[in-house]
């Protein structure tokens, strides 16, 4: 692979497998995929299909047992893990906020780890909270438990954006929210990541979310990537797994038009 292509591809999986010593079946086997700069890749699949593991292989929370994961042209094992993780935003369900930090301190965490000065951090926190729709003066000094689920999720996104990382990883970020909040947050997040030009890898079991946010959708099943398609090709796929997902959609046509 030449340098230009490597630069264009922010994340690449080369024959990646991941297994645990006490399990006979691997969690991930022989995974190959590339994520281009600026695209949003959605990994879709049921629980236990290996999609979260795939995500954790990117920021080296896990290290592949076979093959390699390349981020910005360098294998994750060649990166200093601390430096790598500070360049990648990470959002999990309910935001994964630290309960003993205020919202402001949560959002300003990575900048403070990077050694920014206080004034710059404060300005950045204010900017980000406004960006995700949380009024800074109201929310910066509150603790996570004083916020609603949707507000916590917004704060989680703000925290992931704090040091302006080129890559964002989201693990079922909207899973725990009520349908209305989820729909509006999904829409807002889509707008935001497009506007900021972020590369996003998002994991979900919600096919509607995948169609709404993904520039490509990877369908995972039992540790393997079955399908990697754009949303409209995904809609017309005759893969039985994909069809099973699409059959759960009462509003298939509408969603398809939108995507």
């Amino acid at each position, binding site marked *: 692979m030449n340098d230009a292509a490597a630069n264009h591809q922010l994340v690449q999986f080369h024959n990646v497998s991941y297994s645990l010593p006490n399990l006979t079946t691997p969690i991930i086997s022989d995974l190959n995929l590339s994520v281009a700069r600026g695209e949003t890749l959605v990994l879709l699949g049921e629980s236990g299909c290996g999609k979260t593991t795939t995500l954790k292989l990117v*920021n080296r*929370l896990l290290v592949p047992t076979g093959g390699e994961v390349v981020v910005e042209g360098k294998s994750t094992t060649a990166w200093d893990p*601390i*430096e*790598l*993780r*500070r360049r*990648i935003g*990470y959002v*999990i*369900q*309910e935001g*994964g*906020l*630290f*309960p*003993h930090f205020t919202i402001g301190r949560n959002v300003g*965490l*990575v900048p403070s*780890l990077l050694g920014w000065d206080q004034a710059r951090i404060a300005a950045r926190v204010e900017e980000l909270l406004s960006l995700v729709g949380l009024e800074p003066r109201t929310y910066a000094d509150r*603790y996570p438990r004083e916020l609603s689920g949707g507000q916590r999720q917004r704060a989680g996104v703000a*925290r992931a954006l704090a040091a302006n990382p080129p890559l964002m*990883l989201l693990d079922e970020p909207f899973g725990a929210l009520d349908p209305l909040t989820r729909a509006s947050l999904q829409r807002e997040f889509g707008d935001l990541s497009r506007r900021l030009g972020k590369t996003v890898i998002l994991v979900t079991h919600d096919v509607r979310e995948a169609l709404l946010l993904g520039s490509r959708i990877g369908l995972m099943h039992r540790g393997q990537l079955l399908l990697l398609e754009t949303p409209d090709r995904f809609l017309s796929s005759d893969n039985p797994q994909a069809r099973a997902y699409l059959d759960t959609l009462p509003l298939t046509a509408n969603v398809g038009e939108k995507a």
Partner: protein
Amino acid sequence: MSFWHFLQLNWSELLVLIGQHIKLVLVAIVIAVAIGVPTGILLTRYRALRGPVLGIANIMQTIPSLALFGFLIPLPFIGGIGARTALVALVLYSLLPIIRNTITGIMGVEPSVREAAVAMGMTDGQVLRQVELPLAMGVIVTGVRVATVIAVGVTTIAAAVGAGGLGVYIFRGLRQNDNNLLLAGALSAALLALAADSLLGLVERRFTQRKPAAKAVGRRLAIALVLILALIGGLTIWRSTKPTNRVTVGSKDFTESILLAEIVAQMLEARGVAVERRFELGGNLPHDALTSGTLDLYPEYTGTAYTAILHHKPITDPRAVYAEVKQEYGDQFHVEVSPSLGFENTFAILVRGADARQLNLKTISDAAPHASKWRAGFGQDFMSREDGYPGFSKAYGLKFAEVREMDLSLTYIALSSQQVDLIAGNSTEGRIAMMDLFQLADDRHYFPPYEAVYLVRQDTLARVPALREVLDKLANSISTNDMRRLNYEVDGNRRDPKEVIKEWIGGRK
């Protein structure tokens, strides 16, 4: 004397004891936290070590405190008598709850929170300091709270190794059968435990619920309490600063020994020698402390030295016992034996006066036929020594219905309240007359002679010339009756030993 009156008279001494108590607990807990929290953190990183380390800490907690003190006394550096030994024991007791709660607290941090911390790019140290420890703090403080309450209790035992604290009142109260002393000691210890518990409860709440409003009041209260405790602790440290060239006088943990020690102490002070008192030391502590140089002298009985320390079979010739003890102490320990003080404190086999009159008992042999219906109560000392219960019961062919091992001073109370029917007390005990007890004659001359003497380090005699003068003056100067009277002043009339001795020395001039 009413308890209120007692407090009015003794409040300053009580405050000193409370101060010592707090100081011991505070220092022990600070050390235990300094060791326990890092150990706990380490054990969350190296799981394989967790079982063995927690196992050892667990076993530590099951060792009775007196036994633990016993193990520690002969050890160099950490042993001996006084505050250091007490601190070592307290720290060992406090470690388990602190280590265990540190582990529980850190392991209890939600995996998703820890994972988020790692994913944010925190280093191991940052995850620990910024996420795990703050979130575990509530549980860790609970551990410290438990450890502190336990330590307040265990510290009362520290009086047995001469570390001071409220145990001094409790032990003295038991010995003198004085409820005021007991109450003052036990009540203060209980209040101290409650205060420590609620104070740390406040700290704990501050870490578990982050309500900004409640925080301010609790914090101010906590700071105020900590300041008060620090002040009391500081005062005791300041008060305990003493001149370095002095004679350290020890005593065993019963009134007569304290009185004899007090006599030397006051006579030395009258000659301008600085004296440190290390009284009320249990078991073989005084001997160990004397030979290790922690004590310069203490009162002893020739028979005790001959059998319990030198491990000879008991003999009945007083002169032979004295000569042998003097010879061997000089050779083995470089300790000099003073001339006899003029009285013997032998084991007194005691029954209730009413029983003696009713059954017409005069001697131990007279009592032997009744033994099978009787319960006997003996002090730990009597039960364990060569010339105590084993030989005694054989010599007289005694078989009791039941033999209870208990605190020596409690045996008198047990006898007069009919919990037991026969005890082995001391012939000079002041309470014998007070409680209407009867001493059975040792008609088979079983008990070896117990002449009272002082055991003095030879290097101290060389260092402090006034000491020799005092010992010569005391030779043959205290009769058995004198001693009974002095004992009774303290045990019967509940008077301060210092006062009693001051009066006695004054009256002899």
